[in-house]
């Protein structure tokens, strides 16, 4: 009786092994060749910047990031930079960085033509959304760059970071 039990357990173990092996091999094969495949380790520490799974089609690019709120403030004070809010209209209405323009990333196509008319391609632009767990600001930056804008940065601490420092909002 006990031998049959052990034999059954061995069978189950083998079956589970087969099932899991097939799954794992298939998983890594597909992930490797998929155009949206992700890295084996992502960037999930907000202290390092915007969190991202590091997919092949990722919109997050470190070199565009402004990770220091005070630097963003300095750019704001210089009067040159145009702050662009990537969040929804509702969020924008509720509160945004003073002087910022609303260009929700989900409605990019609807608003980009007007935006292109108003702002030259060499305008210094700083996009932002709702913090380091949100990549809409990066997404918007990529869309703007794709449309020809040459000077785009991403303020990764977003509206919450700005507001927390008591900087000008409206």
């Amino acid at each position, binding site marked *: 009786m006990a031998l049959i039990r052990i034999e059954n357990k061995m*069978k*189950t173990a*083998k*079956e*589970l092994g*087969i*099932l*899991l092996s*097939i*799954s*794992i091999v*298939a*998983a*890594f094969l*597909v*992930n490797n060749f*998929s155009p*949206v*495949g*992700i*890295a*084996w*380790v*992502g960037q*999930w*520490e907000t202290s390092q910047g915007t*969190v*991202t*799974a*590091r*997919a092949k089609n*990722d919109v997050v690019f470190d070199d565009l990031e402004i990770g220091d709120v005070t630097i963003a403030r300095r750019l704001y004070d210089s009067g040159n930079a145009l702050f662009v809010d*990537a*969040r*929804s209209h509702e*969020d924008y209405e509720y509160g945004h960085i003073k002087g910022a323009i609303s260009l*929700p*990333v*989900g409605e990019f196509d609807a608003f980009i033509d007007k935006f292109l008319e108003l702002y030259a391609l060499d305008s210094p632009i700083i996009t932002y*959304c*709702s*913090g380091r*767990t*949100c*990549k*809409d600001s990066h*997404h918007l930056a990529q869309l703007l760059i794709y449309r020809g804008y040459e000077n785009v940065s991403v303020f990764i601490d*977003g509206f919450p970071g700005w507001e927390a420092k008591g900087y000008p909002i409206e």
Partner: protein
Amino acid sequence: MTAFRDGKQRGIQLNETAARIIGNSWIEILARWILGFTFIYASYHKILEPAEFARIIYGYDLFPAAIINLSAIIIPFVELTAGIFLILGVFPRSAVFIINAMLAVFIALLSLNLIRGHVFDCGCFAPGISGREPSLVSVIARDIGFLLLGMYVFLYNRSRRWCIRQTF
């Protein structure tokens, strides 16, 4: 006297009917296919958008950063494979064992976050993502339902229909 006897007869009849339903191999295969197709469907979006799934895992705030991506890569394929095995009837008991294990873990994690009152604020405006999730309680209830179905399939001990390979 007769009322008592009739009541007992009725009880026995109900038990027999219940037993017949539970023992019915068509019910078993129905349960197996419900679980199988559900998990195949569940894996579909995760395989199409692994970054999004990784983000969701991150949002639970329960896992070390190092295993998030690996989990996002592997879990959907375990779901897919187990689902296919269930439908084709390959090692059905082992396949449903894995599915039950996954369901138990999902239920535990969801309940943990429910208790914590943890809400993952994505703050993202992206079509199709916000506002799609049903309430946490209904998801937990649904998973418990699936787990019960899965336990039924696991414990079923008669011969199953339409199985390519019952055991190794």
